[in-house]
């Protein structure tokens, strides 16, 4: 800064308490607004990812054949053929008390036809439990009926895109379709839900598990989806599932259990770290605000020397003067913080309107923390000027030195 600018700044700052206070409020408001806004953005990102994953069902465990150390990857190609998962394995899992649903799955691909129209579609062999486990929703009709998984009727639930391709706008419920060389009656149509677990839910036909076993001539399951009773029980369920299947497979740990909880937990952790990091960056602006407050307060003290001297002559002890200046600093910080929060909420509201899909939200802890930090900053940086004021010699102060 050029010396004349420094003088100009000082003269402007000396102009009056109103400008001085406005300056301090502004500094604090900007600091707090950035802290709150940035943590809200971080929290929003966390929620966004969390929501995306919750669509898959948060209490879900996926059991797949084969042992793999890294979660999420395919079973290893070397290391021997693992024992396949069977329907009996799946039914055995229902013994665990923390398991709510078990949904065994067989996945294959087959041509699906209605009259002259034919499409190649993903065929899912499943049971009635798939509906709650995967949060599937029906546009029309019913899902697969519950009952003995060994004996399924020749019925099918089809995805919305498949229905459109085969039937157009004509009604499909109750009609017969051909999958490969077998006939199935359409009893339900899924709501369009997009993709989930890497499968297009639109181009899908779901048939009873026993029917898919004979269709694809296989006994082994592609996956077993397990839903725990609560999200907290996911870890216990994971252990129980491993334990039961290990016993059934002769002591061999030849299955892999993937929990979304682990995945969600990782994301939670990543985004919490991110939020903290971003909050930390914003906290720097708070520190800057604090230093500005200290400077302006120091100017205020030197400007109000005579006043401080008078207060001392009128019998105010040093502690009283210290308190007066600290309260000023504290009030300014808190008012600034409230203004900053209002600004941040305005920003959050505006962003919520601009990007309605992004679940931006101010985490309550951020508000409390911001208020606390503002107060602490104000007091911390107010202490030095206030102590200077309290220690002024009254005789010198009164004569204006």
């Amino acid at each position, binding site marked *: 800064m050029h010396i004349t600018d420094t003088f100009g700044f000082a003269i402007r700052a000396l102009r009056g*308490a109103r400008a001085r206070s406005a300056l301090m409020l502004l500094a604090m408001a900007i600091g707090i607004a950035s802290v709150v806004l940035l943590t809200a953005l971080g929290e929003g990102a966390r929620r966004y990812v969390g929501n995306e994953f919750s669509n898959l069902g948060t209490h879900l465990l996926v059991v797949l054949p084969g042992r793999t150390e890294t979660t999420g990857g395919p079973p290893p190609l070397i290391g021997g053929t693992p024992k396949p998962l069977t329907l009996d394995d799946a039914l055995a899992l229902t013994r665990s008390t923390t398991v709510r649903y078990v949904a065994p799955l067989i996945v294959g691909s087959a041509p699906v036809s209605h009259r002259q129209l034919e499409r190649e579609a993903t065929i899912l062999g499943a049971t009635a439990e798939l509906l709650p486990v995967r949060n599937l929703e029906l546009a029309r009709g019913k899902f697969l009926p519950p009952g003995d998984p060994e004996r399924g009727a020749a019925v099918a639930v089809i995805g919305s895109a498949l229905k459109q391709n085969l039937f157009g706008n004509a009604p499909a419920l109750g009609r017969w379709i051909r999958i490969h060389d077998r006939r199935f009656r359409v009893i339900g149509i899924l709501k369009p839900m997009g993709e989930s677990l890497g499968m297009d839910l639109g181009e899908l036909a779901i048939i009873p598990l026993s029917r898919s076993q004979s269709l694809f001539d296989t006994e082994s399951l592609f996956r077993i989806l397990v839903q725990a009773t609560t999200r907290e029980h996911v870890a216990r369920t994971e252990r129980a599932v491993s334990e039961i299947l290990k016993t059934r497979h002769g002591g061999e740990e030849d299955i892999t259990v993937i929990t979304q909880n682990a995945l969600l937990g990782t994301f939670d952790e990543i985004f919490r770290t991110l939020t903290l990091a971003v909050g930390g960056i914003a906290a720097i602006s708070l520190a800057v605000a604090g230093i500005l407050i200290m400077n302006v307060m120091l100017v205020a003290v030197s400007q109000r020397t*005579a*006043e401080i*001297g*008078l*207060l*001392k*002559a*009128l*019998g*105010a*002890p*040093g*502690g*009283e003067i210290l308190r007066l200046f600290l309260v000023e600093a504290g009030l300014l910080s808190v008012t600034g913080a409230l203004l900053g929060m209002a600004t941040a909420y305005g920003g959050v509201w505006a962003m919520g309107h601009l990007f309605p899909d992004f679940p931006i939200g101010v985490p309550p802890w951020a508000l409390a923390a911001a208020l606390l930090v503002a107060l602490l900053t104000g007091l911390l940086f107010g202490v030095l000027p206030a102590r200077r004021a309290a220690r002024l010699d*009254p*005789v010198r102060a*009164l004569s204006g030195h």
Partner: protein
Amino acid sequence: MIRLEGISREFQVGDERVHALRGIDLDMIPGDYLSIMGPSGSGKSTLLNILGLLDRPDSGRYRLEGIDTTTLTEPQRAAARRERIGFVFQSFHLLARLSAAQNIELPMTLAGIDPAQRRQRVARTLRALGLADRAEHRPDQLSGGQRQRVAIARATIMRPLILLADEPTGNLDQSSGEEVVETLETLNRDGITLVVVTHDPRIGERAARRIRMVDGAILGSG
């Protein structure tokens, strides 16, 4: 009531040590009217500051109502200023952002007196000084004489034993000065101990006891 014994005070000015006060002895009884005169630098303001407990002597004893003030802690000295001493300054030292009434109220606010009583006492004092219609005026809306009378009201609102006035008429024209001195003398007649520091002989001569100071020592009193 007030007894100074061998009060000395030195200041460091550059490389030199300046003896502002050299062995001052002084006694005062309640209701005294004392003027301290002398040229600039004679130590009269330093003496007033020590009397007002704003400054500490380097040596000597100062007894106020039988209490040795040199042994008091800073908060105790502040309390003594609040309860027993009133100050009137040459430059008034009114707070510009407060109204006349609020300025007068300030010592009571600092002393923690409850608001209803404060308002009552302020109103009474304003009436007594003929400033009732100026209560809500800010200092910059008052004349010099009015400002000094507001300052006197502030100095006496806690009913102190002693009123210390440092050049109370220094910033006033003659008629305003006259008015202010009369206000001070009225308070003195009502029982307050009054000490006026001045270099205006016309003001100083009016006091019952007159002290002349030169070079930090009392030359003579009459």
